[in-house]
């Protein structure tokens, strides 16, 4: 490694947004839980019961899963929105 330059890893601007560690943990757990729920091995070979009389269980589950991902995103927007980006202003280099 070229150590000609030392990297300053400290936060550079005090005004940056901060994410509460508890919220951060909640966000990680929520995302992992929803990801795991995608792998619904218990529905793999099930053909019954048909939801509303015509939707196979595997399809009904993933339709519900899609709704749940929308809820997950709504929660993320509520608790983890990068608010500090809202004040971004133009500052071209040249």
């Amino acid at each position, binding site marked *: 490694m070229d150590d000609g330059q030392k990297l300053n890893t400290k936060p550079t601007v005090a005004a*940056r947004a*901060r994410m509460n560690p508890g919220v951060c943990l909640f966000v990680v757990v929520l995302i992992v839980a929803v990801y795991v729920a*995608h792998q619904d091995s218990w529905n793999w*070979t099930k053909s019954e019961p048909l939801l509303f009389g015509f939707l*196979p269980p595997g399809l009904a589950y*993933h339709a519900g899963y899609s709704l749940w991902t929308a809820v997950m995103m709504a929660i993320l927007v509520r608790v983890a929105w990068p608010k500090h980006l809202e004040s971004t202003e*133009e500052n071209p280099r040249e």
Partner: protein
Amino acid sequence: MIPVIVVLIYLALIAVIGSVALSKSRENTEDFFLANRSIGPLVFFLSIFATNMTAFAILGSSGQAYRQGIGIYGLMASSSCFVIPLTIFFIGTRLWALGKKFGHQTQVSFFRDRWECNHIGTVIFALSAAMLVPYMIISIMGGGTVLSNISASGPDHQPMIPYAWGCAVVAVVVTLNVFLGGMRGTVWVNILQTTLFLCFGAVAVAVISHALPLGFSDYMGKLASDPKTKFLVTREKMPAAVFWSYTFIPLSSIMFPHMAIMCFSAKKVTAFKQTVIAYPLAILAIWLPCVFLGVLGAAALGKIPDPDGVLLQMLNKYTAPWLAGILGAGIISAVMGSDAHQVLALSTMFTKDIFAHYGGHEKFGEKKSVHFARGFIVVVTLIAYFVALSLKEKQGIFEIAIRYAFSGFAAMAPVMIAAQFWKRSTKWGALAATLFVATALIWIAVTQASHKPGDVLWQLGANKVFFINPRGDVSFWNGFMTVVPMVFGSAICVVLFSLFSRPPSQATIDRYFETTSYASN
């Protein structure tokens, strides 16, 4: 005849919107490529969704459901519902902020500035462009096929619009729209397009359900009770390893140049809020009816020669001609919405990352850069059109190329993540990952062409590390798709080569991480 008239009226409307957009435009590249970063929340959502939804979302999804059953929804749609909004939320918002602050209009211009590099950015550009071009060609091919299919009439099903004319109509309308209106014309058209194809699924299901001789439950019961067709309502023939691997594919979305460029175009970052919540609902609205109708087609139509045409056949058989025309316009919308963004993205990349970067902008100025971009759009569409005509019978090649492209763009995601979230990442890490992805794609293409199903490519003890699966694709250990090792391999390349090379200057790191990061303490 009626479907053709409806579709032609719709196409004319799109061309008119492009010309109105021209009257609002200013002769500078930021306006032409990004609509002056002025896109509001609703239009932003409709456009970013149109950008990412190709004809595959309607025709391919129903065709795959006809072949493989309901598992296609979980495999492709619900995994996208999870991954794509997350990438837009975490990566897209930061990309917007960096674009706004530093004036970036493409991913490559961000990488060049972030990592203080020049030619490495050109390498990333070359790989991205190479993976995007087949996508554009197949959009034109898809448009030609759809127009010829929905215009087929009479007992011998002769199309009123032959394939070549269908391709030409799509190419001309997309070119006019993008050439005249740039990003503004494209997103205005997207409002109409996305609304049309969002309604498509529900209308198609409602109309077809009324026309079918039996009820939905009768058809589904019939499929479930027959051992030969039961797999269509379960996932018993779908390997779990493939199902899991597919969750990596939607990582490609944010790395598609047209998606990233859309992220730059929003007026405010708050436009992303509604988008990430509505995105999974929109996927649900399109994919659920199409997958359901594809499976239903297996029961209602029996064996058909072209499974990708199952939905068109059901529309022709079970709906009135005028409605088939409107629904056909919905399918064409999906084709052209994404095609327009691909053409515009290629033009943006060539103009900004090559022409402007290597001195063209300084030499010719802002106004001539827009002329260059417009000229490029005409040339690239003409080339794509003639390729679509001359290689019509080899459409499968482009479909395979797109499969590679999805894996390739997904494997480039670690590069974007490193650029945005890891201060210590370097241009050498990015170059290593890019070369790794390019090499992997070439190796997979050559290997698949030269081996037959069942061949073992690399074995460690009793474990087959790489082998050719029964479909003829290269598979990774236990049947995982190659996208899995590609994503991890790319991430390892970024980390290792970054750690062993010089980081960008502290000033650059400060500029970037002031803009986007959460404080670590």
